[in-house]
């Protein structure tokens, strides 16, 4: 299992239109895994590029919560796109031109083109709040490629042919829209990109700060200053000395037996012009041992920096489930 990227909150999509966040209706996201579902009222948003580079084959998994009322169509949930396009061009999945059917789309920055859609009896139930899992497999993105779409783990739709978009030669970013033109609600969460089959993944757990950590060397140190569900740049923790740690305890994993192939830490941060501390390192405190990744040079405006850890940086071996709930997030100035 090689995880290429993951995310599920506004911090993970710093590019494009404004994110709308729903925290109130747990039917639209799995509240033992996520704090919220996200959506756009217009436009679309996209992530930072995958740290391992672009792909032409791979998998994208995500959860979609919705309530369309009378049903709708031509809805675009999320996609694998190209960051250089600057407009979320690439391959998307969502609902087709027929109500209650799933569809596979290309998007060229202006127009969504429906490549294929399901034709069975309504695959989506629009009458009640729903939360579904979508897995998308892309094989050989280009003029002769294949897209397979799975609905709650079951095969639903395939398209083979020209899946290329003009000017887009590969895919390196996740985008989402999830706007219901009929006025219903659509929210996405737990987005994961992998080089291998995502159907076996249980999901993406948001382990947000939920308490003050062992070391709090920054100003405005309480965890509540940097754990909002919705980005709030009016409140932050801050420091202007290098080598200072700021730590917070984290929300536990759900109950069950898990293996953890990837951990991601993301921070929305800036460094003021002329500051002494200008870089940020992200890591964890595992039982008193602290390890951080390479420094990120920060910009003078708030932006997202993120690090991916396929192993525990404090031990250099696979993450151990029994240690996960005791981890603390570590921010270190540099």
């Amino acid at each position, binding site marked *: *299992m090689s*995880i290429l990227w*993951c*995310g599920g909150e506004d*911090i993970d999509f710093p590019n494009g239109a404004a994110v709308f966040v729903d925290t109130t209706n747990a039917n639209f996201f799995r509240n033992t895994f996520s704090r919220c579902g996200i959506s756009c009222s217009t436009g679309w948003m996209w992530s930072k590029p995958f740290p391992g580079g672009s792909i032409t084959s791979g998998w994208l998994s995500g959860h979609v919560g919705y309530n369309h009322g009378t049903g709708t169509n031509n809805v675009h949930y999320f996609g694998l796109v190209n960051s250089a396009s600057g407009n979320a061009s690439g391959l998307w999945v969502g609902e087709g031109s027929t109500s209650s059917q799933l569809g596979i789309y290309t998007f060229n920055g202006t127009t969504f083109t429906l490549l294929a859609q399901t034709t069975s009896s309504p695959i989506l139930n629009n009458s009640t709040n729903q939360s579904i899992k979508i897995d998308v497999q892309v094989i050989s993105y280009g003029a002769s490629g294949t897209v397979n779409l799975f609905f709650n783990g079951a095969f639903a739709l395939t398209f083979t042919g020209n899946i290329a978009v003009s000017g887009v030669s590969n895919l390196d970013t996740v985008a989402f829209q999830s706007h219901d033109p009929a006025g219903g609600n659509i929210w996405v969460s737990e987005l994961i990109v992998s080089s291998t089959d995502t159907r*076996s*993944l*249980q*999901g*993406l*757990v*948001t*382990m*947000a700060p939920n308490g003050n950590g062992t070391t709090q060397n920054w*100003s*405005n140190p309480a965890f509540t*200053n*940097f*754990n*909002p569900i919705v*980005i*709030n*740049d*009016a*409140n*932050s923790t*801050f*420091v*202007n*000395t290098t080598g200072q740690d*700021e730590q917070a305890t*984290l929300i536990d*994993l*759900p109950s069950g*037996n*898990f*293996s*953890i*192939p*990837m*951990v*991601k830490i*993301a*921070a*929305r*941060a*800036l*460094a*003021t012009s*002329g*500051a*002494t501390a200008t*870089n940020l390192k992200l890591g*964890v405190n595992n039982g008193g041992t602290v390890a951080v990744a390479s420094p990120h040079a*920060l910009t003078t405006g*708030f932006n997202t920096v993120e690090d991916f850890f396929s192993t525990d940086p404090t031990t250099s071996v696979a*993450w151990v489930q029994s240690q*996960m709930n005791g981890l603390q*997030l570590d921010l270190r*100035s540099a």
Partner: protein
Amino acid sequence: MSTGAGVNVSKANAYAALDKSPGENVSKANLYATLEKTAGINVSKAVMYAVVIGGTPQIQQFVCIT
């Protein structure tokens, strides 16, 4: 003067905190010092994610060789 990054500060309060009057020069260093070190790194949101495989209690399978 208790502030964090992004907190609004009125011009009158800022001049008072800096012990300056309107029209006097204020250096960036003095301003940041007065604003209690908002100069430097500011983090407004941080989160950790874990990708998980498995979920429900898994049945362990054993093979007995006799």
